[in-house]
Every structure is written in structure tokens, then in C-alpha cells.
């Protein structure tokens, strides 16, 4: 009974100034679609937009907020958008299925997907999961949990999980799926203290599936590689700006959320932005910003092949367009 409605005004707001200025400086038009409605998960794009970074890189960008009614995959397939934010494993599957998607930037370096249990239900290690009811989301949200259970050889009872964490809060399941930047904080802000929870991060169990990346169709890239590069550079710059200007970024995010008539909770967005930084910035390797490591790719692809979601692993060099390597060439 909960749906997201996006105001037409948002489109107008996004389009009108962009159109006006495009005429002035001959900007290249581009459309970007994130997976979901505005929130700190996409802070980098909205900040880059708001701070004029796309224009700086010669783009007249339109952001079309994603959501249940607008999937980036569909928008990319039907060329209603030039660039889209997708999960690595979703894009990989599509590529394997024959849609020529190219990763032009791997934004998140780690999986934010996690499992969480209440210590009160006796779950302190993965071994304690045996025989427990586990709330799992659908499709690709199940790949890592199932791989984990298999890896540690635990038998669980899977309960389909909706978008709320209430089933877990009320005790309907002992283990729930959560995004670190979203549901985990919802749990904290429903009165559970961190010390009362057992979080299970997949990147701590050799199952790191980097999530959000920027994708476009191969033909889009080939037609204008500069445009794709410009979009990636502006977006990454937007992310870095967002991380170093927390309050300003939150103001921007909340502005877009309000425009999209999405309930905006600053504390929650703050948490989300902080987690984004954890997920995107590798403090040990600054060069890794926005890059897809082949090891990560092979891990995700290997798991997908293992469970039969793909038959062949697409070649990494065709799947990933490393802008830095290409720039050097």
C-alpha cells in the first residue's frame, strides 16, 4: 500500500534550466536514471547536477528518478536513458543474456547488502542460523545470502521479505535482509541498539558483490565515448564533493526528495551518505575510485555461473570500459 509518486514538476524543474542553458553553450544532452527515487544513495549525481559539474564537463544532463515504475534496465534497453545506475550482478546477467551493457564506472566498491539478526534471538555467529527463519528479498538480493548459507552449510527457512523491516522487528523472522545504508539504520531508529544486533556483511565473508555502477549500452559508448567519460568524471567529482560537504549535500538531497514528494528524513539521509562514503571510497587505494576490479567481476560472475543464472562469463574487457586505460591509449 506504499507507492512512490513523482511529481511532474520534478521533470519540469530538471528540464527547464537545462534546456535554457544548453542552447547557450552547446551542451551535449544526456539522460541518467538511478535505480530509485532521490536519496543519499545517489547523492553524487544530484550534487554534481546541483553544483553544475555536468555543465562544467559539457553535459546538459537530465536525471530521471528511478523506482518501481521506471527501471533503469528498461530505460537503457529502450534508449529512454543514456546512462543508468545498476547493480553489477544485474548488469552482468543482462550482458550474459545478450544486452550489450557496458560498465563505465563501478561506483560502489563493496556490497551494502547485509543480513542482520537480533542477538536476543540467539544469533551471534553464522552457525547459529541453522533452522532460523530468514527474510530475503527477491532476485539478485538472494544470491549472496544463499551463497553464504551454502558456504557455511546452514539450513534456513526463507521467508519472502517486503520493503519494510517490521516483520523482523516484530519477530516474524530471526534474520532479515537489509541495506547497510538504509534498513539497518531504520532498525536503529526503531529502537534497536547496535550492540543488540548481529550484522553479517558479505564483504567480510568473501562474498563482496560491488553494487551500484554506471552503465550504458555499448553503442551509446561507441557513439560518443567523450560524453560517457564526461558523465563519469562529473559524477565522481560530485561524489567527492558530497563527501566533503555533508550538510550542503543533505540540503540538496532533501530538496530533491521534497520535489519528488518522498518522505525526507535528514538523519536517515545523513546515515546513508556516511555509508555511501564507506562503500565508495577505498581509503587504502584512492585510484580505485569508480573502477571495477577484475577480481570483483570474476567473483560475482563466478557465483552467478555457479547457481546457473549465467551460462558463460562475459569477457571482462568487453564488459568494463576503463576510462583511465582508454584515456592513456
Amino acid at each position, binding site marked *: 500500500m506504499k507507492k512512490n*509518486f513523482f511529481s511532474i514538476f520534478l521533470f519540469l524543474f530538471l528540464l527547464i534550466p537545462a534546456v535554457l542553458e544548453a542552447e547557450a553553450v552547446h551542451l551535449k544532452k544526456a539522460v541518467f536514471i538511478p535505480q530509485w527515487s532521490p536519496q543519499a544513495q545517489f547523492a553524487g549525481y544530484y550534487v554534481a547536477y546541483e553544483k553544475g559539474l555536468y555543465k562544467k564537463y559539457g553535459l546538459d544532463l537530465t536525471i530521471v528518478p528511478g523506482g518501481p515504475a521506471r527501471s533503469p534496465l528498461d530505460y537503457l534497453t529502450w534508449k529512454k536513458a543514456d546512462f543508468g545506475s545498476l547493480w553489477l550482478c544485474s548488469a552482468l546477467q543482462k550482458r550474459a543474456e545478450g544486452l550489450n551493457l557496458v560498465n563505465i564506472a563501478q561506483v560502489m566498491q563493496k556490497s551494502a547488502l547485509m543480513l542482520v539478526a537480533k542477538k536476543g534471538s540467539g544469533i551471534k555467529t553464522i552457525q547459529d542460523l541453522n533452522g532460523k527463519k530468514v527474510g530475503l528479498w527477491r532476485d539478485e538480493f538472494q544470491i549472496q545470502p544463499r551463497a553464504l548459507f551454502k558456504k557455511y552449510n546452514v539450513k534456513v527457512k526463507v*521467508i*519472502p521479505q*517486503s520493503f*519494510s523491516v517490521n*516483520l523482523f522487528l*516484530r519477530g516474524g523472522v530471526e534474520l532479515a535482509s537489509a541495506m547497510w545504508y538504509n534498513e539497518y539504520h531504520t532498525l536503529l*531508529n526503531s529502537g534497536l541498539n547496535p550492540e543488540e544486533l548481529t550484522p553479517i556483511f558479505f564483504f567480510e565473508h568473501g562474498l563482496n558483490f560491488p553494487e551500484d555502477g554506471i552503465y550504458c549500452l555499448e553503442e551509446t559508448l561507441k557513439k560518443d565515448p567523450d560524453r560517457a567519460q564526461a558523465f563519469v568524471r562529473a559524477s565522481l567529482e560530485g561524489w567527492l564533493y558530497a563527501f566533503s560537504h555533508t550538510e550542503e549535500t543533505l540540503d540538496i538531497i532533501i530538496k530533491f526528495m521534497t520535489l519528488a514528494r518522498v518522505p525526507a528524513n535528514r538523519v536517515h539521509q545523513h546515515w546513508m551518505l556516511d555509508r555511501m562514503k564507506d562503500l565508495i571510497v577505498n581509503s587504502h587505494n584512492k585510484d580505485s575510485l569508480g573502477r571495477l576490479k577484475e577480481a570483483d567481476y570474476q567473483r560475482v560472475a563466478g557465483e552467478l555461473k555457479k547457481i546457473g543464472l549465467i551460462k558463460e562469463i562475459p569477457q571482462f574487457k568487453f564488459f568494463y570500459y576503463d576510462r583511465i586505460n582508454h584515456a592513456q591509449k
Partner: protein
Amino acid sequence: MLRNKSLTFKLILFFSTSSILIFSIVLAYSYRYSREIIQTDQEKDARNLALMKVMRIETVLNAVQKVTQSLADHLGNSSCSKEELLTMIRTFLEHNPEIYGSTVAFEPFAYDKKTLYFAPYFHRKGREIEFADLAKESYSYLLWDWYQIPKELLVPQWSEPYYDEGGGNILMTTYSVPIYGKVGGQKRFRGIVTADISLEGLQEIVSSIKILKTGYGFLISKNGTLVTHPSQELIMNETLFGVAEARGDTRLREIARKMIKGESGSIPFWDLVSTKNCWMTYTPIPSTGWSLAILFPMDELMADINRLYRTMIIMAVIGLTLLSVAVIFISGTITRPLRAMAKATGDIANGNLDSALPPVKSRDEVGKMAEGFMIMQKSLKEYIQKLTETTAAKERMESELSIAHEIQMSILPKNFPPFSDRPEFDLYAVIEPAREVGGDFYDFFQIDPTHLCFVMADVSGKGVPASLFMAVTKTLIKATAKTGITPAEILTRVNNELASENEAIMFVTIFCGILNTGTGEILYANAGHNPPLLINKEGKVAYLQKSGGLVLGVMEGISYQVESLSLEAGESLFMYTDGVTEAMNIQKELFSAERLQKELSMLAQRPIQEMVSILMQRIKDFSGEALKSDDITMMVLQYKGKETSD
């Protein structure tokens, strides 16, 4: 420092500080106590109010629970056709106007073996009741909280509040009851019956809470989400935990945790928006696990008592001021006569005994003191009067004494040389009385043309009695000395006269001699007097032999021995009283007989008048500042012989 301040200052200081202290203690205590009473009362009221509100909410919820439960029970026990079921739901809505919408949702194939999903939903739209099918692919009701949670927990559930987007954004909550069917005697879960209710009613119950001016109530859901609050922007947007996080307020988080755990309590709190100090009472709503909180601002709660105590403090200040004025007045009544008294006594001290004492009417300590001063002044006046009289008397006496002295002196021969017609001897005497009237005397007179009687005496005691005794003695000697009588006989007779009627037991030492002016022979008798010194022609000075004669006037019938010596021409006899030898200096040393002898030796060749004068000067020099203790009398008799007269 304080001791130098005036009495008024000290009194004000003392009374003010002690009054302020007492006031402060009493006010502070009663203020604190009153606050506690008010707070306790208010807490009780708030708790009762909260319980009452919770009961009202519960009544609404219970009614819904009951009808929904009975529908679920009915559905579990009977199978019905699709039409019958739809009618049943519609009727359910029609009969329960508080219920906004209702569905009966079944597990896959639980309604019948052919139907995968079955979830007919009726809800109000305006006055109409509309039908909707939730079993559409896009809705997948099996995943929703209202279905999933009671299914997994197998107990009826109230959902978290949510906005119904279809029905005009009304805040709703859904009560879901599991339907159990019996399959082969076993209870089996078949689906869920729901009843959606609008939270408007509950919101009204809560928002009608008004305590004092701005006190209010708010409701939070099981997840801590604010369901009602005077600040609209918090409703459904924030959980109490979110507010706590935004503020970094761990205490608020702890309180919120207690609230969602179904605890109740009363705690000091602060408004979520204004952060004003409040008191909060919270009570759980048992059926939903939600929590109702009632806040009342402390400043408003304490407004009356604060006003009262402000007034009391002002009154205390005024009281203290009045007290100070009173102290100034009272201390004035005490210190004014004291000051007047101080001035008057100052005048008295300066000698003005008639200075008027301030009139004092009171009979207190000051009055008594003034009375004392009055008596003192009177006594002082009397005393000084007496003193004046006494002084006058003394002065009169002194003048009389001086007259007596003159008389005494006048009875001593003072013309020197005394016998200008007698060249064969010379005589010189001097007397220096210690007091106005002394007891020493000397005398000389001719008994017949060839005999000169001379006397050197010292009466015991001083002053008038001694001088009178002296006069008597002198007269007696002069009367007794006749031709042919020896000095011893003179003394014997005079002694008898004196001793016979000497009740005062006075006595006198006398050296008495008779010079034969023709021969230079001297007959003499000594009645206890200092031995005279003989100065011969060569200037040698020697004491006469001591004779054992008793003093005169003590005992009758004593006879004295006559002795004799012979003066060559140019030889002298030096007589004196003990005032000479016993003259004392400030070191209490005596002039002494030795010194006298020595001094005389040095003066031997001088004329006798000069000798005596110089000697007198020596004695005075010796005594210096020391008080003269005795009369000093000296007499020198020089024999010049017949030859010179020829």
C-alpha cells in the same frame, strides 16, 4: 573594623543578615516543597489523564479487534461462496462505521483449489463502499506487513501507521487477524482478515489533550514513529530515535526505548521542538504496543508558584527595608541619649559639672545609666565642694602654720653678732626647718655679765606639737638659768618640769653650756644630744666626748652630769642637730659625722658666719633633690679671749 562602626550600623547589619538568612531558608524550603507538591499533583493528574486517554483509545481499538476477530472466527469455521464472502465484507463495513476498509486475504489456493490469490478488498470512498481486488500481480499482498506479520507470528496484529494514498492521505492502521481452518482436525492457517481504521479519531483523542497553556500529548508507534504531535512535520516523518540521533541525545533514545517496550513512567523531559523543560508521563497502549506521552512545561506548571514567590521575595525585601528603618529608629532611641550622655560626660570631664544631663524618660538600661550618671554628677559635685572646703581649711591651716613658724623663728635670737659690746666671744646660729614649724631650737643669753648660757636642742617629732614643746622647753631653760647654777642642774630641773606633765611623751635632746666669758671655761651638760665639735686654733676639729645623759621629758628625777672644757682664744665650739649628720641624698646616703668633721676642718679658719653658711650650702648640695627630712640647725660659739678686748 566592625568594632569601630556605629551601633546603628551593627544593629542593621546583624538584623538584616539574620533576617535575610531566615527568609532565604524559609522561602527556599517552602518553594522547593511547594514545587514538589505541585509537580507530584500534576504528575498524578497527567498520569490519570494519560490512563483515561489510553482507555478511550483502547475502547475504539478493542471494538475493532472484537468485530474483526469474530469475522475471522466465522470465516475459519465455515466455507462460503465468493458472493457470500463479498457480501459479508461489505456488510462488515456497513455495520462498523469506524472501519475504513477490510479485506479477507487467503493463502495461495486456500480459498479453493483453483484460485491462487484471493483477496477481495472493500473500502469507503466518500459515502460509498468500493471494491478492489488486491490479488493483482503488482500488489502481491502476501508480502505486505499486514499479511505477513500475523501470518508468521500467528497472532492478530496492529500494523504500523501508514498513509493511505488512495483514500485522500488519511493516516491509517490495519488490524489483521489470522484465519484458521480445520483440516482433518488440525488447525491450519488459511489467510488474514483485516480492518483498516483511520487514526483521525485517535489523533483527535490525543490532540485534545491540553495541559496548562502549551502542554500536550503525543503518540508513538511500536517503531517509535511519531503518530501525533503538535508539529505536523514530525508526524510519520520521524521516530523518537531519529529525533534523538539528530540531537545526539542518548537519554531521549533510552526513554523512547522504554516507551516502545511498553513501560510507563514519569520523567523530566524537554519539548521535542522547543527543547523547553517539561515533565513527561508516558503510558503504553496495550493492544497496539504504542505509547502515549503527555508533556507539560515546567515553567507554566510553576508559573503560579513562581509568581507567588516573586511577590514573597518583593515582600521580604520591603519587610527588610522596614526592619532596617525600625532598627534605625530603635537604635536611634538608644543611641541618641547615649550620644547626649557621651557629650554631657565629656563636658563634665572638662570640669563643667553643671552641664545638664539629657532628660531620659525611659526606665530601660539607658534610663538607668542616665540616672547613674545623674547620681555620679551629684556626688562628684558634692565631693568637689567638700574638696574645696577642705582645701580652704588646709590653706588656712598652712597660713596659720606659717605664722607659727614666724612666731617660732621670732622666739629664736636672730641678731648676729648678738652681743656687739662683748668682744671676747662671737656666736652665730642658723636654723632651717624641715617643715613650716620645726622642733629644733637654739638659744643663748647672758645669765650675768660674765656668764653666757647657750642651748642647742632637738625636740622629738615635727610640726606644731614639736614647736610648742620647744617653746615650753626654751622658756623653762631660760627661766631656770640663774647665776650660780650649772647646766646639769638646769637640765635636771627642766626635765622634771617637762616629764611631770608630758602626756604626749614628747622628748627633747639638749646640749646646754655656760661660758665664763672671762676665762673661756665652759660648763656643759648633754641630754642625749649630738656631741658638739671643738675647733682649736690650729683648725683641728674634734668631737666632744659623748656623755650618757638621757633625753629630757621622758622620766622624772633624772640628774645630769656637768662637764667642762676650756676654750682658748680663737677656739670655737660647733653645735648642731641630727638634721646635719642625717641629711640624706637621693642614694639614701647620710651626710654623716665624718663628713661634717672633714668639712669643718676645711672651714676652720673662716669667720664663723661664713663657716656656717658654707656648711649649710654643702649640706644642701649633698642632699640635692632629696626631700629634707629634718630640721637643720647649727650654732658656733667662738671664744676670742680677754686680750683682744683690751
